[in-house]
């Protein structure tokens, strides 16, 4: 395990704890954006709360559906406080959907709301990096470098450290750009572009990449797609702003 993680009895819970801290910090950062973007901070915070609750419940149900037999035998395990028995993708998707529906019904503007989310997402990405650092997930490719770390039985790229550093830079840029966004949607799309670019570059140093087409890292293909989609989005938003100023 990572030498920096010799923190005694907390070692195991640390990744989850960091994620939890990330969620909390992210949502408080998001709520702080409300006044500047002229959004109701009560509605915004309800939206986040709803998204989190629906996300958490769906993540557990999604996980239980995968192991239906086990949960039919022990239905009470549905309530277990175990963060490892969650299905993250299902949870994230339903949480976002619920938040989106709520936002539409409350008449929140789409781009303004997404802009409010951007700094929070950047904060959460940073927390995710620290959580990877603690758990040893998202580990690097074997490498013989002066700064390589010993992990999972090999000297490897400290990919989690790269991840934290780059997420810190992205957060800095987003916080700086927050006050000078030229059009609604700029901040969110900007975050999407930076996050995708980070993943695209860092994936090259990972030792756990899923490989497709014989040699290509899947995450890089997806990131490049998202990166281009983000840039296209910026173009479209800029064009719309030029056509309908104000």
């Amino acid at each position: 395990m990572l030498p920096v993680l010799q923190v005694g009895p907390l070692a195991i819970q640390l990744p989850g704890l960091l994620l939890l801290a990330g969620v909390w910090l992210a949502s408080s950062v998001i709520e702080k954006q409300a006044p500047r973007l002229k959004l109701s901070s009560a509605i915004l915070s309800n939206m986040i709360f709803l998204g989190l609750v629906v996300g958490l419940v769906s993540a557990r149900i999604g996980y239980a559906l995968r192991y239906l037999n086990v949960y039919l035998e022990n239905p009470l395990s549905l309530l277990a406080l175990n963060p490892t028995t969650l299905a993250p993708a299902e949870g994230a998707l339903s949480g976002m959907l619920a938040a989106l529906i709520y936002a539409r019904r409350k008449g929140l503007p789409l781009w303004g709301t997404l802009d409010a989310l951007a700094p929070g997402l950047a904060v959460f990405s940073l927390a995710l990096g620290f959580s990877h650092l603690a758990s040893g997930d998202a580990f690097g490719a074997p490498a013989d470098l002066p700064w390589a770390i010993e992990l999972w039985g090999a000297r490897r790229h400290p990919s989690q450290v790269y991840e934290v550093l780059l997420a810190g830079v992205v957060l800095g840029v987003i916080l700086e750009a927050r006050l000078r966004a030229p059009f609604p949607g700029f901040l969110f799309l900007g975050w999407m572009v930076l996050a995708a670019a980070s993943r695209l570059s860092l994936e090259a140093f990972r030792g756990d990449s899923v490989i497709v087409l014989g040699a290509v890292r899947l995450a890089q293909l997806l990131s490049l797609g998202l990166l281009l989609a983000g840039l296209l989005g910026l173009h479209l938003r800029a064009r719309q702003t030029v056509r309908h100023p104000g």
Partner: protein
Amino acid sequence: MQSLVDDWVARPGRWFPIMGVTLALGLAWIWVSAVPAEATTGGQIPSPREGFLAPDFTLELLGGGEVTLSELRGKGVVINLWASWCPPCRAEMPAIQQVYEKAKGRGLAVLAVNTTFQDSERDAAAFIQELGLTFLVPLDRDGTVSRQYQLRALPSTFFVDREGVIRKVIIGGPMSEATIQTAVEEILEQDG
């Protein structure tokens, strides 16, 4: 300066050259960082995994003494990580005991590794005594073994064959006696 930047990003036409350059650089980077599929673990933690050597460890035992996994080479070993406050862990213990009694003559060892760093040694001892469990109970006091074995959920059980290779991993429980029995048959296959 600020208004210059703002002007610049607000011009729709500016984004096309950026997209072109991004696409070219992105594809080049993907090309540079391409590796054969065998070079990565395809999303998995390298160990503990089925087909890989079980990470070795030495731990103190409940009631004194210590045990080293590699010294049990030649026996089939069931490594079960548990805690006394975990209901499914408690529920599967009698079944493990039954299988152990039936198969210990054929070279089965059970290491019920207590995750002591998140449990109390006294509760663990009381539970073992209450159920009259007779297999070894190593104490993972600082969480080292739980980290080595990537503990994600309690209980987690690793079935290790006579060569020290992990043959089956069961995350979560409780396991039925049949589940344990079939896995044990698999690791005891070759006669020691």
